[in-house]
């Protein structure tokens, strides 16, 4: 049976992992390759690396990090953050990433999704959508969640899937960094609106939040950062809990070489 995926997210700046609260106040939480290996050993199903470097030098450091991760980590990983062209998508995949997440660039030019899908296939393209609640609707935000757009999250999700994106990474900006739980209404609405897998992001504070995202939000995967980095939740313990709640999860591997 297909399992719910647990995905630690590593924010990377100039080759180092960082994580902030509500995208500010960054704290250093270690070497990304080492951390990736540790998460893989502990049973993470997938990893996401977001490049938050602002400089060209930081970006080339990030690509070298992608290569090093691909050498040692034998689970799938997605990279994102500031990727804006079909060429940059190809470079990231050639460096060894399995998927690339696109956010601000596809809001500015939705056709980029079609271009990438034609070149590398939709299974490698993740549409990242940052959302804030506005009265009774959900609005898409751009530029790392700093600027609102005029787009409705549900309408935008349908469009990116129509254009061929293979997965959605949905971050609630209202919840991000609050540890008050994922935005279940948002997840449920998006998951029901599209046929592709949905990754829940923003707000995880407890194991129950993750259960709720899968059961009530119908998410296919749950993503979190600081609660994993600072060992507030251990992946093995989380998987035991989810299994006890009737959610299929992948236990630690049985095979030995």
């Amino acid at each position, binding site marked *: 049976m297909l399992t719910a995926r647990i995905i630690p997210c590593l924010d990377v700046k100039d080759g180092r992992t960082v994580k902030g609260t509500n995208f500010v106040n960054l704290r250093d939480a270690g070497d990304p390759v080492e951390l990736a290996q540790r998460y893989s050993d502990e049973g993470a199903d997938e990893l996401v690396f977001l490049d938050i470097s602002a400089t060209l030098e930081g970006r080339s450091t990030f690509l070298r990090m992608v290569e090093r991760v691909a050498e040692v980590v034998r689970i799938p990983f997605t990279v994102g953050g500031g990727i804006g062209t079909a060429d940059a998508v190809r470079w990231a995949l050639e460096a*060894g990433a399995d998927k690339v997440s696109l956010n601000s660039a596809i809001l500015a030019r939705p056709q980029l999704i079609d271009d990438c899908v034609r070149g590398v296939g939709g299974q490698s393209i993740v549409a990242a959508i940052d959302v804030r609640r506005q009265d009774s609707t959900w609005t898409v935000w751009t530029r790392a969640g700093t600027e609102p757009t005029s787009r409705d999250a549900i309408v935008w999700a349908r469009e990116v899937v129509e254009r061929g994106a293979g997965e959605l990474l949905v971050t609630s900006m209202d919840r991000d960094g609050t540890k008050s739980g994922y935005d279940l209404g948002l997840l449920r609405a998006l998951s029901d609106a599209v046929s592709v897998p949905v990754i829940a992001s923003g707000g995880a504070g407890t194991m129950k939040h993750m259960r709720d995202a899968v059961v009530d939000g119908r998410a296919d995967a749950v993503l979190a950062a600081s609660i994993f980095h600072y060992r507030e939740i251990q992946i093995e313990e989380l998987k035991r809990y989810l299994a006890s709640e009737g959610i299929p999860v992948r236990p630690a591997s049985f095979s030995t070489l």
Partner: protein
Amino acid sequence: MAGTVAIISYRSGNVRSVVNALRQLNVGCTVTAERTVLERASRIILPGVGEARSAMEALEQASLVDWIRETRIPFLGICLGMQVLFERSEERSTTGLGLIPGTMARFESDGTLKIPHMGWNTIQHDASSPLFNGISPDEYFYFVHSYRAPLTDQTIGRTDYGVTFSSAVSIRNFYGVQFHPEKSGSAGLRLLRNFIERC
């Protein structure tokens, strides 16, 4: 047998993951589309990401279609590399290598089934196949695909996702797996090692 593992190169990214996985097994490999290099290989791996039509076109351009059909070298197709072992794919009405009868069909969503089938799933495998030597039936492997292979006499692994489909096949010297062993942790490495040492 002398020779090395040859990975058939496509214009797509995931060749590198297979190279990295083999390196972790201390297995040397060469990435090539040259028939003369392939002929000297001890094992051949056809990885695959992308879609069926362009994969077949790439093999045709390299004049490899007839050669692959006739080779006796142990051969492993991964993901799309398994799909092209079949006769046909509904994906852009593509004709495959035709080594295994049947047509690749798209998963049909019933409203709740997410497509692609993406993530970790189990395989009810044929325990007598050397490919699965030492691999528990409870083991999980990583999948990402929108088209599925039918169950046939060549099926050696079955997986459930809405329907039951072939997640592993073998015929003569040819093996195919729908999942990505190069991305499936230690179980995947074990399967790759089985292919190199036992198939």
